[in-house]
């Protein structure tokens, strides 16, 4: 996931570190949860992020982007 510095459009180093941490933390969290409880785990994560973020519009965009019809 590392991005060479100086590439046009590449995220700044702090964002890169954040993205890589999200990748690892979410993967580890899912692996640490039994398959039958992963749905609840993800719902809890989303709720905590939404409550801490306090941004209804950002949350609405996230839900609308993430929903998988059918």
């Amino acid at each position: 996931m590392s991005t060479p510095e100086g590439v046009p459009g590449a995220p700044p180093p702090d964002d890169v570190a954040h993205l890589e941490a999200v990748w690892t933390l979410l993967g580890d969290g899912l692996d640490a949860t039994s398959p039958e409880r992963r749905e609840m785990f993800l719902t809890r994560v989303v709720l905590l992020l939404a409550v801490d973020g306090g941004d209804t519009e950002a949350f609405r965009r996230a839900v609308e982007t993430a929903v998988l019809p059918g």
Partner: protein
Amino acid sequence: LCEKDVMRVYFTPQHHPHRPLPDTATAPLPVVVVGAGPVGLAAALGLARRGVPALVLEAADSVSHGSRAICVSRQSLQILDRLGVGARFAETALPWVRGRSHYRDREVLVFEMPHGERFARPPMVNVSQSVAERILVDAVEAQDGCAVHWQSRVTSVRQEDDLVVLGVETPDGPREVSARWVVAADGARSEVRRALGLRMTGTNYEGRYVIADIHWRNDLPTERLVWFDPPSNPGGSVILHRQPDDIWRVDYQLAAAEDAEAESRPERVHQRVAHHLEWMGNTAPWTLEWSSVYSARALSLDSYTHGRVLFAGDAAHLVPIFGVRGLNSGLEDADDLAWKLTLVASGAADRRLLDTYSEERVDAWRQNIAQADKSTRFMAPNTPGYALTRDAVLSLVADRPALAHLVNPRQSGATHARSSRLTVPATHPADDDGRSGLRPGDPVDDCPVPGAPAGTTLHGLRAGGFGLVGVDLDPASLSTAAARAEAALGGAVPVRPLALRTPADHALVAAVGAVSGELVVIRPDGRILARLDGADPERPAGLMDHVLQGGTR
């Protein structure tokens, strides 16, 4: 469990004989109320106490059986105060302020409702509907111009130009009763509604609950106890409320696949209640006294006035049980209807005033449904998505207090009349100049009057009429304004002045959210009609004329 030592104290209804109906062929009655439930009885009392005779027709021969609507809100207690029965409710019912919610076997939320010395009444009391009706029946029988005729079932309704003719089935045979006005308060299965061919529309929810009364002695405090997904009822919820005399109300949710008829058999109810009490660690004996099955519905008539028939309570609208808005909204109906019908029946007001009863109370139903819908989706989520989200919230709320708002049961509160035609729009922003935020149309919580004899309250001083609350205004001008306003009403409803001074009367000034130089006009039902600057002696009389014309002036 051993039941042999449990003393039977459960409510036993008194059976009433039929009393012959009066001959109304040549002299129609002013008002007939159909239904001797709490709403009908409250409407009849509210009318009779203002000098409008009201005859109550009840199909049964006794008050209802079973706890049914057990939670009576502060707003309802204030209404019962106005009906002269507040003290009996206070000495009979159990007050409570706190609730505890559990997720599985863990307590996740403790909530408290606003309470303390600044309020005349507690936020909520528990009393069975049977006892509440008994208190109201006693008051009706003691009130001049008011009586219940038991075993009198309304079977037909015929509207003529200036009266309503009711067909009534009695032990003496069929009878006809004529009245200028009919209040239909005959419950969810209203015969009057059916006779007029009216239908309620709205939403039926999926969740079904068994509700049961048990006699059970224990030391648990009077609190609202709720368990979500407890081991005793996996996937469902259980609610527990203490009533007077060691009677407890248990509500538990049925799973979608469970058969309500089979689950409502006494032996099955006993088994499931026992399962929950044993899980709680109970070893004390108890008895099952009554049970029923409930499903949540949010239904309403489009209008609560149909010619000279006025609908109130469950006959007009249904709300889900969660948040206890059924009985409490019905008592608000009765409170609003009584003063308006008094003015119309006495000839002081145009009948358009009754249109505002319908408009305000239909709007109140919408206010109630907006809250009850949220409560119902949380208590009994009807989709897998909401069920998962609800459980996720419950599992996190102990760690994230911000989520508590979602778990809080949104207990019934008084509805407002901000959009009513009667309500005079504010001339100031709600929070300007130190005002409390109470807007015209908002209900004012009753409060004790400091330094006055015990039991004296702000709303009590109005004697069931309008109140002119002036802050730092000339008392003589205020009295003149009240006298002129009362004269404008033809004396049918009193108008009482209350001159307050700052800072001496701080508590009362704060209760109405007023500022120095302001005149707050309070309606008989405790809602703010207008907030005016200064004590122009003519202005309140002009406002009363506005009321008498149904807000169309």
